[in-house]
């Protein structure tokens, strides 16, 4: 029996278990217990004149929340060293996610539902922003890799780039016999890059109209005798391939941007939060 168990254990170890379901949701359960205790304490105590951050429960929840925030932020330091076991990076990440979510309950109860236009609520809102961006990150990490993979069709990023270059080289070569009005369209198409644009264009739809599409349309409008020209047919086919490759790359860029963008909110907002938290704690006692 013991042997079977050991075998089972070994099998579990070898199976991939993501950070979300690490150790059968150990940290989810921990976070739920923490929230339960906080809610229960809030419901059972009757602070006078009203619940807020200045009661004993308020100070306790506030200290807990501040400690959690600092510890959660330390994931940025911790993730740079990978270890195994109970304190593995995976365990740490799992705790980061679930304890981070528990902060919503702990810190909301710390506020006693008193919010205003002040540094205290700023810290609260920044914390919610960090948590919301973290939730977004988890969702895109869960959903997007499959889409990324199916879009990639087993091509690596350098291969995608190389593929575009290969098409471009052939286009350049194939367009040599064409007249000027055709070569201009081809040149414009060649100038269109996969990564054109900043953040918003990256996040926008991948199926946008570009010089390559316009060139294809121009070739489609060619007269009947021109349309029979094998050079023209070849260039148009190459342009089609270019457009398809561009579309794939842009989808890839968009999915990658979605996978990365949340960290551009999560990390800076965390630092703003730590700063606001510092100001919150100091100001509360400065004007005690």
């Amino acid at each position, binding site marked *: 029996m013991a042997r079977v168990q050991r075998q089972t254990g070994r099998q579990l170890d070898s199976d991939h278990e993501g950070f979300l379901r690490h150790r059968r949701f150990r940290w989810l359960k921990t976070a739920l217990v923490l929230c339960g205790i906080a809610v229960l304490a809030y419901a059972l105590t009757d602070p006078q*004149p009203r619940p807020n951050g200045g009661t004993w429960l308020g100070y306790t929840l506030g200290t807990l929340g501040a400690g959690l925030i600092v510890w959660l932020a330390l994931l940025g330091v911790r993730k740079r060293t990978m270890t195994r076991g109970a304190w593995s990076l995976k365990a740490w990440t799992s705790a980061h996610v679930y304890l981070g979510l528990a902060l919503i309950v702990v810190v909301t109860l710390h506020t006693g539902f008193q919010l205003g236009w002040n540094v205290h609520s700023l810290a609260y809102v920044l914390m919610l922003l960090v948590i919301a961006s973290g939730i977004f990150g988890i969702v895109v990490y869960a959903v997007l890799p499959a889409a990324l993979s199916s879009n990639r069709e087993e091509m690596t990023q350098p291969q995608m780039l*190389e593929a575009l270059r290969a098409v471009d080289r052939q286009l350049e070569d194939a367009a040599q016999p064409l007249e000027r009005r055709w070569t201009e369209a081809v040149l414009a198409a060649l100038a269109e890059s996969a990564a054109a644009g*900043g953040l918003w264009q990256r996040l926008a739809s991948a199926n946008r109209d570009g010089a390559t599409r316009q060139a294809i349309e121009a070739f489609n409008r060619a007269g009947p005798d021109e349309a029979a020209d094998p050079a023209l047919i070849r260039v148009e086919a190459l342009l089609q391939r270019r457009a398809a490759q561009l579309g794939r790359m842009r989808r890839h860029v968009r999915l990658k941007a979605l996978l*990365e963008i949340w960290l*551009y909110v999560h990390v*800076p907002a965390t630092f703003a939060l730590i700063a606001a938290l*510092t100001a919150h704690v100091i100001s509360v006692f400065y004007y005690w």
Partner: protein
Amino acid sequence: MTFRLRTVETTAQGRAIVRDRDFAGSRVTIGRAADNNLHLPDLALDPRHAAISARDDGRIVVEALGSLGFTLDGRQQTHAVIAPQTGGELQFGSYRITVSSEADGAVLLTVGQVAGSEAASDEKAVFALAGRLPGKRLLSWLLGLAVLIAFLAVPVYNNLTRDPAAKQGIKGDAAWSSGPLSLAHHQLEGQCVACHVKPFEPVQDKTCLTCHKDVHDHAAPQRIAGARAPGSAGDQLQWRIAHSFGKPGPGACSDCHTEHEGAGRMPPPAQAFCADCHGSLKDRLPDTTLGNASDFGNAHPQFRPALPLAMGSEKLTRVSLGERPREASGLKFPHDLHLDPRSGVSRMAQRLGQGSSLDCKSCHRPTADGVRFLPIDMERDCESCHSLAYDKVGGTFRKLRHGDVDQMIADLAVAPRTPSPIAVPILSGRRRPGEYSSSGPYFARFAPPAGGIGSAQQALSRGGICGECHTPSAVGGRFAVVPVTQVSRYMNHGWFTHAAHKEEKCSSCHAAKTSASSADLLLPDLRSCRTCHLGENAPRGKISSGCAMCHDYHITASAPRGLTPRRKE
């Protein structure tokens, strides 16, 4: 089908040498070995790497012969079909073969070598967000520092460098306020240092007292210190921690009066603050006369109004209503007789145009603020029926002087021996018609003032005109009546306002209709109040009544602050 192999080599001078070699056959082999049709000397290739063969439909098939593949248009493959008209680009190691078709139908394979690695250098620029956005690290530092400067450094600097004499707000500390101040402190909004005098020091009582100069203590400080319940172990731990951080209290102003809880009136302190001491006060202050009280609904002693207990004494004594005290006001006044709609009093009221009968407000008039009632005034409230007229000279009535016994005796001593016509009906027993008749406005019923000193004696006797309402007595052998004590406020330690209860009938609380004696104390007891009022946590339908509704911590003669906002609302 013809394969035309075109090799392009570049000379040291940069000149391209193009060589075409037609290969008539349906299969071209490619590899590192020299016997291949296309010999590509690259160590990354198999000796027999791949073969290109023509298909019947004009397309060509590229097949890897070993385990290593090739790329077609950048994609790794081991098998590919290419239409030469459309073309494609194959790559074998560092060699690139471009497939196209020639005008004569030959398949052109242009072979060239890739010059160095141009790949992957711009991978990050194309696919990663880095560079498209300001770096995370930079953003983090900027945001963090901006918050720290705006919300910490600026207010702290301005606070530390302020001119203590100048009464102006400190720039930047508005964001520190956890909420608006109450109405009473509204003018201090933005002047944080008015209360938060020293950094890291809780608001001190002495700071409150700089403005609230007239606020007096609830009791002597030693009494208060002795009265406070020590609290649970948790409370004691809390206070130990609070004191270690320099927090004043318990009993500091800020313990009960918390600020920054929102605009509007500061809510009255909760009953728990009172119950800390009064809930079990007797245990710690055995000499107190106060009963334990922690909740009006279920832990409050019976009311103890202050009332005169001895005839003629002005001393008011506090007695619990539970002991059913009798009030010695010195007056005789049966409420039931006066309020009975079928009594002679009501008939008289009808005749005098006072309505169908007397009611409470016929005699009891509220004070201007509506809180209490004015004392009963004989001339205003009684005399329209209980006339003191005893003579008529021309159109003027002579009346006995109310409130001055000596004057009354002197007046009666010189009164005419012959009774005045207005006194005739009483003296002779005969009835007169007209306006002097018993139903006329000038009819007055009073005991027979026969005149002379004997009449005064008569008037002051138990059955005499004075004795109708007063208790006759003798002071030093002289005729007198017992002085009347009217209590205008029975509850001096609690607040009650009639104005707030004007929706109620008088009889809901005062059993005047069944009271046959003025000694009956017609005050409602605790139970009566509890029909509507329960403690702070009163259930729905009852009035939530904390201590501050009736009591003040800083006792004043006016309404407790707990009541003031309610009245305004």
